[in-house]
């Protein structure tokens, strides 16, 4: 696709019929978590969309976010979306290296000043810039320079969005997030460790069609982060009935009951895993029998044990709750009692107290 072509023109030149285009729009609406009634509006916007320049900077990261994106199904739809952006710099994916690569970045920044989308994965070390540099340039300098001419910034992954694992205690590199450093540009946070591939492409498509998506208080697009994992979980009915797996191999685990007591962070985690799922829609961690780790929330690495029930402190009380409670209703009441007693300490440990907890308390 040439730079001045619209997506509609590019598709027609590829010999794709209007029916094919409508199909593409329906799949795109589904991918962007928009209602099917929006398809005509998406068709109109995509028809006119022009190829934006994208510069992707990778800082203190594990390349998991890039892996997530590139390992997503090589579907036609996603391919087409990538046809519609001009990825001018991505040091893992681009063929050029060394001076050639850095020249491409600088040329694109100059040519598309004020118009390009800046994607960042990884956190930025500020206590000692030497921890992470690219071509001898510190991450902070490179980010600040690239951010200046960007139309918008997309922070991909929990590291870029919130600091992530590099920022986990004791944060040896002084890692910070993109939004810690940049205050004067629109920033879309797409957290997750890694984020769901179609959420990454969905956000880019949204930018392409309707501009910046609507964001929540943490800068996350509401279309994908508007519901908690718990709200959309197929095991939710078991939670409501008070049916919990107590260990990973008990009868409850085999029957697919709720993993709340095994430390599931679903109630406090906002992401699209429960509906979009992973590995081309095969399943998601809870469907595979493992509690949600809460990887799309700030400080998830330091928010207590992955295997400890939300809002419950460490020590004997947890064990007592788990083993003393027999029937589901009693379990709920026991958890509520622990909640009341230890809510403040739970809050200090980032284990957020939820509306569900409060509902349970009011019932008990």
């Amino acid at each position: 696709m040439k730079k001045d072509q619209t997506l509609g023109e590019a598709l027609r030149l590829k010999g794709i019929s209007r029916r094919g285009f409508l199909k593409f729009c329906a799949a795109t609406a589904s991918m962007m978590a928009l209602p099917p009634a929006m398809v005509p509006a998406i068709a109109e916007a995509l028809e006119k969309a022009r190829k934006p320049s994208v510069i992707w900077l990778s800082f203190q990261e594990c390349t998991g976010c890039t892996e997530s994106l590139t390992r997503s199904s090589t579907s036609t739809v996603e391919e087409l979306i990538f046809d519609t952006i001009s990825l001018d710099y991505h040091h893992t994916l681009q063929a050029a290296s060394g001076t050639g690569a850095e020249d491409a970045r600088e040329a694109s920044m100059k040519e598309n000043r004020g118009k390009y989308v800046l994607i960042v994965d990884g956190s930025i070390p500020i206590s000692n810039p030497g921890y992470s540099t690219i071509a001898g340039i510190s991450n902070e300098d490179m980010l600040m320079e690239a951010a200046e001419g960007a139309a918008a910034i997309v922070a991909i992954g929990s590291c870029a969005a919130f600091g992530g694992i590099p920022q986990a205690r004791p944060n040896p590199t002084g890692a910070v997030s993109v939004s810690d450093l940049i205050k004067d540009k629109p920033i879309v946070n797409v957290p997750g460790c890694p984020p769901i591939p179609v959420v990454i492409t969905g956000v880019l498509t949204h930018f392409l069609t309707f501009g910046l998506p609507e964001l929540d208080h943490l800068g996350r697009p509401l279309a994908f982060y508007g519901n908690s994992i718990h709200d959309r979980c197929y095991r939710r009915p078991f939670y409501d009935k008070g049916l919990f797996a107590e260990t990973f191999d008990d009868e409850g685990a085999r029957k697919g009951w709720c993993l709340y007591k095994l430390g599931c962070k679903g109630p406090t985690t906002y992401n699209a895993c429960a509906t979009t799922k992973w590995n081309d829609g095969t399943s998601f961690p809870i469907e595979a029998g493992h509690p949600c780790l809460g990887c799309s929330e700030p400080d998830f690495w330091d928010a207590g044990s992955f295997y400890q029930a939300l809002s419950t402190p460490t020590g004997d009380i947890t064990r007592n709750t788990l083993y003393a409670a027999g029937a589901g209703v009693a379990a709920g009441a026991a958890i509520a009692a622990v909640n009341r007693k230890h809510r403040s300490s739970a809050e200090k440990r980032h284990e957020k107290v939820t509306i569900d907890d409060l509902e349970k308390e009011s019932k008990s």
Partner: protein
Amino acid sequence: MSDLYVTMTRPDSIDIRVGAGPRDTGNVAPLLNEVRHALVQLLDTGKETIIDLRSIPLGPGESERLEETLGEGEIEAVLHSLGRSTIRETAYPGVWLVTHYNEEDEIMGKFVEVTHIPQILKSQNEDINEGLQRLGSTLEQTH
């Protein structure tokens, strides 16, 4: 919490049953009711409804159960554009199941459409116009 691990049995002794147990989200029945309401609306006002099945949490096997319940009707069409798409009328006239696949035959979208005919089955003006021009140039060449 560590004593949880102590009480665990060895992995090879765990009785794994694929698909075992009640994993019902309870979403199939409300979904079918939504379809029923949509049919009433289609008859009364002509308003069409499209439900994106991927936006609704369904447990393992529930999607299949929903499709079984809807059954198969008189028409099944296959569209070949950007991979195949199947457009099938269910056992309930006016209720269509539209599934879009990509070129690797992975599902890209699945919709229940309550309509007289899904939009995507109709010939589109852009395509008709393009075909008209093709026919014109074919006739010019042959005569």
